[in-house]
């Protein structure tokens, strides 16, 4: 323990270590510093989340209150709200579809991929493995700015006259390929494809950097079996992205060809707008295979980092080692591997060969096993802990609950026989919003609350954090849980209204209730955003290690350029030595050698003291510039 405090004390001695003062532009805009890039991703992600959240409020109003006068939205939505002779404003059905599409695209890619992985992989990988920065700061910078460009293109697409893409976030052709079939498939769809292509470039640049950094830049003693679970999660996520995103790129490229250059990859035998198109021999199912080859790993790209963050937060705040460290790694590895071979469970009733359906059902249900192991391990970590409910911890527990509740319905949807009825109903909407929407956003919020002190050197207000948590947690369940009932009653997704069908003309009250809960859950985020912005400037100054945590990032106070003022700390132990028997303190950071904690060492750890000399003998590779 003494060693840590000593280390932290001389933080400010690093002034002379600084190479030179960077200009404002290089420091805050075109920065190569992983911490700045992380903050750029985080703030972009938050802005996108606000946009995506507000969009959901608009279409929820339509669904919850189909007769609502939307004339008050006219100043914002313009032509998309039409005013009837009686002065009643109605939302345009095409724009409804566009809103649903953009909500999905924004939340999946811009918030929960870029905002989550981009923020925390960037911020934590160098700090937790003990590196001065990413393997390539320049590529890292490019990664953010490609994302920024992608964001701009997607943002612009919202304002084009024919509206943004409107065929659902999965953009299945032929709908997405034919401007005659849907106005959103015109310039809006072109911009969507361009934005996604840029996004994929950004994601690949980021992913390659994360993997390279984790493999090559670990500090002395940081062997793979001492990596925090966050780092394992980010690494698996990056590998998933590197292998899966190029396939989406190919799908997007072929779709661009079909749309603009008259090819027929996905189009065949189409009669639209009074004429038969010349395209023959293409297959819309091919696009679905390509799309979901990314699309399914994508949901793990979203949830794995959230699970990694949760592992770290739960262990720290339970004051206990994470239960089953190795099992956690293997289950994440299992999830990563299986993620690539389950994609066609999104396609059971698309006309795909039913035999394929059987195979994919089998593989899909296997993925429940490693997922269950993770959930059980979290709960066992809480067992006989000494739980401190920081806002981060509350959100992490919320994540576990969502992951369990939403994951379980996956067992039903993964069963192709049961999926016949439930496919594309609200049951699916409920399932994925809980298991990868709410859960992942809770992981992200847990991460923000937990690492805010390290990011900005200040504390967030905890009381506001609690209020934020309880409001969001309760209202999220109130939004998504009732959707199961609506799904069991057969209500299809992406319907502008249901009352046209006698079959779906029920649950008006439940839909209104969901809308009210959704508005509360979105409004509650104002608490978070004001807390976030206020705390950046006016928050209480944070100590170096506010949560008494073990990982390396807490050994440096206000990390500046190069992260550690002096030598990078050496790692001797795993990151989860919390509440070790016979130890005077309830946490022993990774950089404390076993030789200085003889009272708490386990028998096999005493033997490891001999190895410490070996670790210390390792030389840093000075050829890698700081």
């Amino acid at each position, binding site marked *: 323990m003494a060693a840590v405090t000593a280390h932290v004390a001389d933080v400010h001695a690093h002034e002379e270590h600084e190479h030179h003062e960077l200009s404002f532009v290089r420091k805050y805009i075109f920065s190569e510093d992983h911490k700045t890039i992380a903050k750029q991703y985080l703030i972009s992600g938050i802005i996108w989340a606000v946009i995506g959240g507000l969009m959901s409020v608009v279409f929820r109003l339509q669904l919850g209150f189909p007769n609502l006068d939307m004339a008050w939205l006219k100043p914002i939505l313009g032509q998309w709200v039409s005013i009837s002779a009686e002065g009643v404003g109605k939302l345009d059905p095409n724009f409804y579809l566009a809103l649903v599409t953009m909500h999905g695209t924004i939340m999946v890619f811009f918030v929960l991929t870029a905002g989550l992985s981009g923020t925390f992989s960037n911020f934590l990988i160098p700090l937790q493995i003990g590196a001065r920065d990413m393997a390539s700061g320049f590529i890292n910078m490019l990664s953010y700015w490609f994302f920024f460009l992608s964001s701009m293109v997607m943002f612009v697409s919202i304002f084009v006259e024919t509206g943004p893409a409107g065929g*659902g976030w999965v953009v299945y052709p*032929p*709908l997405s390929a034919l401007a005659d*079939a849907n106005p959103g498939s015109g310039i809006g769809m072109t911009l969507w494809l361009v934005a996604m292509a840029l996004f994929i470039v950004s994601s690949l640049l980021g992913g390659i950097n994360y993997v390279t950094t984790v493999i090559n830049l670990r500090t002395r003693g940081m062997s793979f079996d001492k990596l925090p679970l966050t780092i394992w999660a980010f690494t698996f996520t990056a590998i998933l992205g590197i292998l899966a995103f190029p396939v989406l790129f190919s799908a997007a490229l072929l779709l661009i060809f079909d749309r603009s250059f008259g090819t027929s990859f996905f189009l065949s*035998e*189409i*009669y*639209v707008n009074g004429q*038969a198109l010349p395209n023959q021999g293409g297959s*819309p199912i091919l696009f679905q295979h390509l799309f979901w080859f990314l699309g399914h790993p994508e949901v793990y790209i979203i949830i794995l980092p959230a699970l990694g963050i949760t592992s770290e937060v739960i262990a720290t705040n*339970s*004051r206990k080692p*994470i239960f*089953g460290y*190795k099992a956690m790694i293997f289950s994440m590895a299992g999830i990563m591997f299986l993620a690539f071979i389950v994609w066609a469970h999104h396609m059971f*009733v*698309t*006309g795909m060969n*039913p035999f394929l*359906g059987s195979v994919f059902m*089998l593989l899909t*249900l296997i993925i429940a*096993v490693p997922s*269950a192991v993770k959930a059980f391990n979290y*709960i066992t970590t809480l*067992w*006989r*802990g*000494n*739980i*401190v*409910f920081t806002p981060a911890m*509350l959100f992490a527990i919320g994540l576990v609950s969502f992951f*369990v509740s939403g994951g*379980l319905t996956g067992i039903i949807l993964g*069963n192709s*026989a*049961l999926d016949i*009825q439930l*496919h*594309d109903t609200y049951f699916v909407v409920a399932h994925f919003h809980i298991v990868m929407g709410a859960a992942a956003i809770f992981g992200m919020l847990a991460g923000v609350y937990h690492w805010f002190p390290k990011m900005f050197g200040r504390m967030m207000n905890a*009381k506001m954090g*609690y209020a934020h948590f309880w*409001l969001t947690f309760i209202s999220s369940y109130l939004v998504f849980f*009732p959707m199961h009932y609506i799904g069991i009653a057969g209500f299809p*997704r992406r*319907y502008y209204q249901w009352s046209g*069908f*006698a*079959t*779906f003309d029920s*649950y008006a009250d*439940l839909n209104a*209730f969901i809308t*009210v809960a959704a508005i509360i859950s979105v409004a509650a985020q104002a608490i978070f955003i004001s807390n976030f912005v206020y705390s950046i400037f006016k928050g209480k100054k944070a100590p170096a290690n*506010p949560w*008494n945590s073990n990982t390396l990032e807490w050994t440096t106070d206000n990390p500046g350029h190069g992260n550690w003022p002096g030598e990078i700390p050496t790692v001797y132990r795993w990151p*989860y030595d919390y*509440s070790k028997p016979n130890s005077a303190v*309830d946490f022993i950071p990774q950089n404390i050698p076993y030789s200085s904690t003889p009272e708490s060492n386990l028998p096999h750890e005493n033997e490891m003291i001999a190895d410490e000399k070996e670790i210390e003998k390792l030389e840093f590779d000075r050829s890698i510039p700081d």
Partner: protein
Amino acid sequence: MAIIIGILAIVFIVMTVMVLGKTQSLLKGIRPTDSETSSEGEYVDDANNFNGYAMFVFWVISVVGVVWSFLYYREDFLPEAASVHGKETDYWFWVSMAVIMVGFFVVNSLLFFFAYKYRFKKGRVATFYPHNNKLEVIWTVIPAIIMAGLVFSGLKVWTDVMADAPADAEVVEIMGKQFGWQVRYPGVDDNKLGKYNFKLTDATNEFGIDLADENSFDDFTSNTEMHIPVGKPVLLKIRARDVLHSVFIPHMRVKMDAVPGMPTKFWFTPTQTTDQARAELGNPEFDFEIACTEVCGRSHFAMKLRLIVEDEATYNKWKREQKPFLAMNPDYIEKVPANLKAKAMKYLPVEESTNLVVAEDEATAGGAGTQAALK
């Protein structure tokens, strides 16, 4: 009513949180805050107990809410499946639901109970418990066994549902277009659907029926309703002519995408006629409906087709009353190749066929006046 209860519930929950939060901060002023001075857990604030209790209270209220809302809203779930395979899938749905509900309640209960029970207490030391291989094996194997059970039941049902339709199945073609469903029957004479070609599609011949195929002469179509017989396998031949659609018959538990360029199919056996369903539900207005579940554009939400299930005699009577496409649109006789004209003739209304004979003569006489003659 429920919405008012819901809103009130939210308001009460919010108020409870606020009041408790306020109480906590007031208490803070009175109590000596020793937690702030201790080095261990210095960041533990006095809301910690509140949050611990709140976790547990949240779960208790949730359990009540889940049970109550299920019982309340189950009224509006779909009635029992009206098809043979639907009863099977429904059964397994509720079996799986029961299994996951056990998981849902047990796992969440443990989570929230542990959160409450093991909330921070000064001086307590957490148990250092990094792993237990036996436990790990147990909770890997148990889900694996349960999964295996569900997989095998699912596989069996899936294989049965997706098996080839029996040879005597009643064939109906259903085609999705923006924005509506259209159906085509193979007719009463040859009971075979004629060929189609999307290039032949026009405003009248919406199916692109190929009249060069004699099987198409007696085919009849509808864009308002589909009739099927009860108790007999029905094979839907599904296609789309512009974008993806998806045939969804909620009461029959039928769903299959309609794909341009790739015909799909789904067969099922209805077990209930529309009249029986009306009687059972006590709703004389009730109708089976066909909806679209693959987003297809602006009026995706309005692609409705009435489905009428009737006993076989009524069904056959209805079929005989329908006029073939050719009879409805005699102009299309022109598309029939010369060698089949005679055969096609009998589907035309009487006066039309006489006219046509004349027209035929004129045409062979070298005039291009067929069209004019028909008019």
